[in-house]
């Protein structure tokens, strides 16, 4: 048999992959500290008096990408505040979409997961199977259902048309239920003998033990909805109500490159905070999930 790959070789591959994983983030964050003039001279695609000295081909100016700006400045961030407040509006839109969805999911999912695990009903596994199928479908396959429901409730021109279906999205129920399967049944039986009812068991025994999973769910669902694009491009008609994620692809076509870096950096911060808060529990929280 072949010998095991050497420690150094494996380490080198892993470190290399890790660098690739952080490179885009580092690139954006470090370039956000660049002055507007430097960003323009490095990244503008047309040949202008500023870019003429760089590498050019006809009217095309090639980028001079760097990780470390010549001059470090916070002016990009200042420009967002002073000259381009629409981005802040988009950021706010993202926030009021994401927070209710995450909070709602964290309330609804554990309750339903516990019920699925403990209920003795004939067709519950079939119902759960329907949850799984729904979970796997792309949002676009659910457009008509969501639209019909929104129409019925009179919320078509409202964020609620996006928020409400997302709160009930079955992924959370699936994740938590799979985790609950490894939960010690004897503890629950003991509590029952002590006279605790199901609600008490849920709130004081099961829920506290779900902390890693709940944290993982929070991180995953926040990173998902903070990045919400699909629903927005279908349901939101006016640009000013769009979340930030949808606007960043359009942003780079017009002018102010340094503000693109700055707003992208600002956009990462909430996701990073949630991640850093939850990263300890993340691996454990999804870790014992398996498909059985």
């Amino acid at each position, binding site marked *: 048999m072949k010998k095991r790959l050497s420690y150094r070789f494996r380490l080198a591959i892993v470190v290399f992959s890790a660098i690739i994983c952080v490179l885009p983030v580092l690139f954006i964050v470090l370039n956000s500290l660049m002055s507007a003039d430097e960003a323009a001279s490095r990244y503008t695609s047309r040949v202008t008096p500023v870019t003429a000295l760089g590498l050019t081909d006809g009217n095309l100016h090639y*980028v001079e990408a760097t990780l470390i700006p010549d001059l470090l400045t916070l002016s990009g961030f200042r420009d967002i505040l002073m000259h381009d407040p629409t981005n802040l509006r988009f950021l706010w839109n993202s926030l009021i979409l994401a927070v209710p969805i995450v909070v709602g999911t964290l309330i609804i999912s554990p309750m339903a997961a516990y019920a699925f695990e403990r209920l003795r009903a004939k067709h519950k596994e079939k119902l759960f199977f329907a949850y799984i199928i729904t979970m796997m479908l792309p949002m676009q396959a659910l457009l008509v259902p969501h639209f019909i429901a929104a129409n019925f409730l009179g919320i078509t021109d409202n964020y609620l048309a996006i928020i409400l279906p997302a709160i009930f999205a079955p992924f959370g129920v699936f994740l938590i239920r799979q985790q609950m399967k490894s939960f010690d049944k004897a503890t629950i039986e003991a509590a029952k003998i002590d006279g605790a009812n199901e609600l008490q068991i849920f709130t004081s025994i099961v829920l506290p033990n779900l902390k890693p999973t709940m944290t993982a769910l929070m991180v995953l669902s926040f990173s998902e909805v903070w990045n919400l694009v699909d629903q927005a491009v279908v349901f939101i008609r006016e640009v000013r109500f769009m979340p930030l994620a949808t606007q960043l692809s359009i942003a780079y076509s017009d002018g102010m490159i340094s503000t693109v870096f700055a707003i992208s950096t600002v956009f990462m911060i909430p996701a990073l905070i949630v991640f850093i808060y939850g990263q300890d529990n993340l691996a454990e929280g999804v870790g014992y999930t398996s498909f059985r």
Partner: protein
Amino acid sequence: MRTLKNFKAQKLILLLLIPSLAGMMVFYFIPALSSLFNAFTNHHGDFVWFTNFIDVLTSGAFRLATQNTLRFILISVPVNIVLAYVLAGFCQGLKHKKIFAVIFMIPLIIPSGAIVYFWHILFAENGIINRILFQHGFDTTIWFSSPAAFWITMLVFIFKNIGFNLVLFLAGFQLIPTEYYEVAEINGAGTFQKFRHVTFVYMLPTTLLVLIMSIINSFKIFREIYLLFGRYPHPSTYMLQHFMNNQFAAANLQRLSVSAVMLSLAVFVLVLGVFKGTHKLTDIYD
């Protein structure tokens, strides 16, 4: 007495399910039924059997979308799983395994929108790759409006999703009782046999979870395509999601419902297959 108490307990449990079930009914299940109705009727509400299905199946846009979506899933899912598995194997036994696991999650956690400008700088007409090609006297390409758009999408997808699979695999490795390897070794098992009889059996549930998650995530690729290429991407990245969005914008609920019904059916068959397959495979070894 006992049954009465049980009945009460079951009622309380049911109470916990109701919010979720009500939401699923209102936003998913019941409207899905009316979507099913749309699939089999014309816009006057007359029952038309499979006319809508034939209409969709013969449309060039739908075929292109299905072809691209299938091509994307069939390549991205296995590549992603294999790469994540190999990388997880490499991480296993490294000193700072935990730190690496956290770093590999970063692409998933960072919103795609926030780093889309990085990809732009890399692949743009005046981007880093073209610059290098130009400097060395090669022909440059407008990557975003060439068939390469498909592969750029693939790269961005794998970059984003490999970390989550890796963390799942790492957690799965921990569930394997190490004694089993020792027992296998004592019985003279080679590397392959150890893999087949210990690793494979214990990693199967994890791998299936990874498979399910990878398929779910591969459906979310619309977001990356939109961010990279905007509303009108290259035809090689025209996915079922685009097709369905366009039907929605054109208010063609029949076509949209038909595609949704067919997609749901495909997913149903797939998940059922995975379920049955798991039970069969684990039954053999248990």
